[in-house]
């Protein structure tokens, strides 16, 4: 192969190893170019050559595409179950269907329309896994990552999706390298049967008729399997190239049972935007399938986790490198951002410092012109105002004594014996006694003795003199005296703490009723509260 065709591949380096019963062909795709295929025979020399190639080449991932006669396809149905049950059913089925189930797979293809409505499953298996062993051994020995092991008929399903097919069924016919005819039958897009037959050595002119005979043979086989509907002819899609294609175009005639669609591989490649799919006059489709797999590789089909472990590790390694690169880039990016931010702030800081120094200097100069003070202006002002407040709340008994003397002027018979005076925010505190009765303030008005503000309070003890034993009169005089004091300006409350005679039913009462001379004294005690700050009824 001398051409150097190009193609479009999403992954720069991929290698497809097309395995057949007689050997292997390696298709390498690098940086959008399809390199010349390398062929290795299935004998010891071929495998050795393959090992040498692997040793000398980059450890790019390898996709194994298996195209062997020893791949079996069985259509079956299994109960519609899930999870572990499904796995167990499939495993059991595969064990029964295939002697060696190392490379087996199950493809679900919908459900039966009748009965239990079981799942329709296509079981596939490489019944001679040892065909792969020499190649896999070399790959494993040299730690070459295996991306997966794929079945060529299964991969050809991708082609069916890309070719516009109007019919329900399709038989895809291709010629494979090393002289083999691959016929794969699809029903409603689902792979049902695939057959690989070796071509006998024939003259080129007889090849077309042989191919048509083989197609008819397969049609009859499909018919026997009841895979064909008698009302619909079999749609045969022949993907070929060169003289054989031209011969078939002349010979393949549509019949009631068979319709032929002949497609030139090169022109199909153009539709699929793939180039370099043909070589000379050769009719083979190997490159087409290899390119399809390299272009859009599905998930691994046959390979075990152990076989793909180097590919998994490589992907993990790539992920690590990507994460590392991102971390490094992120760290450096973030660092640059932070450094830039810091530099900006540092520049701003320099300006701020200069401005602050400017104001501090101005302030110091201005302050220097002022006299030396023990504190700043606000504190000086506060100290002065504190003294003013203290002065405002300065208390002496004078105000209350003046109020008391006004009352005494009106009641000369009231003689004082003692007085306890105090000042404060709460006149009931520290007085030593709690008020005992309702308080009269002004005419006919009573309030509770718990005023708010600043107060002077005094307990005044006195007696009526002279006293002739007339307690009724004495009580009246004391009450009037208290009422008069209550009307003096500033007096908040006046409370009678002690009366000349306790006439309340709640009090114990005793005395001498026989003689007025021994009637005792008419003693009383009053409590006066004078408000000096604040307004009544306000806190």
């Amino acid at each position, binding site marked *: 192969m001398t051409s150097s065709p190009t193609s479009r591949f999403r992954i720069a380096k991929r290698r497809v190893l097309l395995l057949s019963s007689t050997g292997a062909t390696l298709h390498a795709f690098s940086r959008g170019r399809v390199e010349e295929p390398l062929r290795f025979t299935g004998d010891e020399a071929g495998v050795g050559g393959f090992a040498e190639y692997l040793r000398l080449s980059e450890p790019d991932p390898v996709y194994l595409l298996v195209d062997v006669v020893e791949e079996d396809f069985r259509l079956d149905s299994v109960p519609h179950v899930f999870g572990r049950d499904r796995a167990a059913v499939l495993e059991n089925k595969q064990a029964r269907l295939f002697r060696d189930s190392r490379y087996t797979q199950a493809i679900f293809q919908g459900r039966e329309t009748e009965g239990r409505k079981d799942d329709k499953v296509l079981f596939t298996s490489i019944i001679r896994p040892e065909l792969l062993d020499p190649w896999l051994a070399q790959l494993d020995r040299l730690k070459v990552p295996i991306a997966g092991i794929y079945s060529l008929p299964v991969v050809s399903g991708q082609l069916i999706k890309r070719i516009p097919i109007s019919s329900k069924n399709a038989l895809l016919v291709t010629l494979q390298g090393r002289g083999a005819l691959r016929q794969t039958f699809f029903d409603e897009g689902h792979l049902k049967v695939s057959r690989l037959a070796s071509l006998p050595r024939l003259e080129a002119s007889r090849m077309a008729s042989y191919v048509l005979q083989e197609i008819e043979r397969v049609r009859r086989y499909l018919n026997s399997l009841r895979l064909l509907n008698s009302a619909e002819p079999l749609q045969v899609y022949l993907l070929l190239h060169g003289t054989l294609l031209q011969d078939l175009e002349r010979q393949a005639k549509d019949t009631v049972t068979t319709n032929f669609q002949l497609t030139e591989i090169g022109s199909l490649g153009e539709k699929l935007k793939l180039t370099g799919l043909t070589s000379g006059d050769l009719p083979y489709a190997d490159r087409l399938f290899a390119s399809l797999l390299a272009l859009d590789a599905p998930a691994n089909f046959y390979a075990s986790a152990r076989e793909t472990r180097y590919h998994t590790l490589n992907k993990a390694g790539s992920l690590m490198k990507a994460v590392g690169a991102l971390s490094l880039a992120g*760290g450096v990016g973030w660092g640059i951002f932070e*450094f830039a931010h810091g530099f900006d702030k540092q520049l701003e800081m320099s300006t701020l410092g200069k401005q602050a120094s400017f104001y501090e200097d101005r302030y110091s100069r201005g302050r220097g012109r002022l006299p030396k003070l023990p504190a700043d202006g606000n504190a000086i002002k506060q100290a002065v105002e504190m003294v003013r407040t203290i002065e405002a709340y300065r208390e002496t008994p004078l105000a209350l*004594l003046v109020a008391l003397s006004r009352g005494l002027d009106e009641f000369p018979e009231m003689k004082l*014996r003692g007085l306890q*005076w105090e000042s404060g925010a709460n006149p009931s505190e520290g007085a030593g006694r709690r008020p005992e009765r309702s308080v009269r303030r002004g005419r006919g008005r009573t309030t509770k003795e718990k005023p708010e503000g600043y107060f002077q309070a005094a307990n005044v003890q006195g007696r009526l003199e002279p006293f002739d034993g007339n307690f009724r009169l004495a009580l009246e005089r004391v009450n009037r005296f208290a009422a008069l004091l209550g009307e003096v300006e500033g007096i908040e409350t006046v409370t009678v703490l002690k009366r000349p005679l306790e006439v309340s039913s709640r009090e114990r009462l005793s005395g001498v009723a026989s003689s007025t001379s021994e009637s005792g004294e008419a003693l009383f005690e009053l409590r006066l509260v004078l408000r000096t700050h604040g307004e009544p009824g306000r806190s």
Partner: protein
Amino acid sequence: MNLAEVDWLVLRQPLILLVFAVVIGGAFAGGAYYYASGVEREHLNESRRLTTARARYLTLDDEKRLIQEYYPQYEELTKQGRIGEEQRLNWVETLREVAAKIKLPSLSYEIGAQQEYEPDFPIDTGRFGVYASEMVLNIGLFHEEDLPRLFAELEREAAGSFSVANCRIQLMSDAFQSNPTKSNLDAQCKLRWYVVKVKATPDRPRRRSRRAG
């Protein structure tokens, strides 16, 4: 694939690269963050410094006005013993002079130690605090009017501010003594001498405190 099947040789290079990249990237980012945080803190300090300096500068005129208005008063109140240190010697001398002047039959005093005082009336404090010394006077009164005269004379003559906290007045006998050297009334009064001065440990400004004294 379990861990035993992992070929660590394959992962060695990516792992080393990952660790290297994470460490380098982290160190670079961490160092930059540390640097930027430090600069940010300094920037904040400088910003506060500027704000304070600007505010002080802008209030300089106000301060001048306050000083011109209040400092003479402050000095006067200091001389009067209402700001600064209390003047106990003056109080004692004044008590003696007043007692002689109004001819009190007897007068004794007892002054307690000065303490920071929390007034029971609303007052704004800040750098300055209220300090008070309690003075207990035992007074023999010839006449009840002697007591108001005593307080009026003290207010006029003594250095400092005082307020009478409480007084107890008792008639000594029903019969009035006409001898002016003899007491007719016995009084005991507690005075609080206030002084405003800089607190030993200034606290935060307290607004309109109204705690019980």
